[in-house]
């Protein structure tokens, strides 16, 4: 039994998730992590599951056509080891090429890693929200200054705020 990545992309309509997961359930596959969203109205879903590759592929066959479906075998699961405290990064401003690249490059050069990211464009307004982990050794002041400079060059606003959870 291998770990599989199933991606489903296509025009949205009610019932896609039910159709896809029903087909998968029929193969005895176990859904593990998944995420789904609408990207400019397109249905987009990624599922990591464990099950028999051939059966999963053929169970999804009838849904191909309106939907672009891929099934791939994944390598061994890598447990994500957090590298440090969490932050939420938000960027917003007038749309222009290069915002995501420039801002995420700053995070990467501070040794940070992004664990979740969403970008949305509505009219002229571009909005980026990301969950970021920064190593304890990262110099927050320098990173914030670097982000400010980058944001200024791009003409956008950027905020990096702590997102630590409280144990209750």
């Amino acid at each position, binding site marked *: 039994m291998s770990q599989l990545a199933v991606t489903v992309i296509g025009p949205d309509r009610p019932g896609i998730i039910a159709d896809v997961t029903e087909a998968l359930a029929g193969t005895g596959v176990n859904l593990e992590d998944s995420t789904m969203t609408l990207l400019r109205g397109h249905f987009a879903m990624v599922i990591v599951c464990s099950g028999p590759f051939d059966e999963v592929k053929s169970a999804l066959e009838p849904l191909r056509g309106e939907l672009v479906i891929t099934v791939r075998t994944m390598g061994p699961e890598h447990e994500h080891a*957090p590298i*440090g405290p969490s932050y939420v990064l938000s960027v917003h401003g007038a749309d222009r090429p290069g915002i995501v690249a420039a801002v995420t490059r700053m995070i990467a050069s501070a040794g940070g890693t992004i664990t979740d990211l969403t970008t949305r464009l509505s009219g002229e307004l571009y909005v980026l929200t990301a*969950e970021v982990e920064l190593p*304890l050794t990262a110099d927050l002041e320098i990173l914030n200054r670097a982000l400010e400079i980058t944001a200024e060059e791009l003409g956008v606003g950027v905020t990096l705020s702590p997102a630590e*959870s*409280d*144990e*209750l």
Partner: protein
Amino acid sequence: MTVTEVISGWTPSQLGVDGEVLEVVRAPHPVLATEGATVDPLDPAMLKLAADLIVTMRVSPGCVGLAAPQVGVAAQMFALDVTDHPKTRTSHGVFVLCNAVVVEASRQEKGREGCMSVPDFTGDVKRATRLTVSGVLPGTTEPVTITTDAFEARALQHEIDHCNGKLFLDRVAGAHAVYPRKVYQ
């Protein structure tokens, strides 16, 4: 004496019984999804449970509150102590409350919560930051009313939810508001 003095003056020694450390149960244990029974605050078994909740809370690093369902008992009782938490403004010290209900809640704010019973996830939850709760201290019969704010308000709502069979997972602020727990170093 004011209510604040009554609660702040309350100490676990008033229970007259030593607590012991109980095992904290984890989701998906069914007791965590069960509405707790109303308790008799004079019942010796409940005084013992109150003492157990405090001791178990004390030995759990970073724990500021513990509800009866978290130790496997579907009952309306929890222990709380936010005294040393940096986000605390008003604090009533350490206390146990029975049959607590929210009387008034306002000024919702989002915050990220973790829970000993859901060790692998955290989640963003909106909670009132101004809160009035009524309940009974164990070993007494007179209801007390607690008005508080900030972190104590959040913790109270989290514990009252436990007593009603609800977890923070039932209240998350959106489809992308549950996160894998971050444990680093």
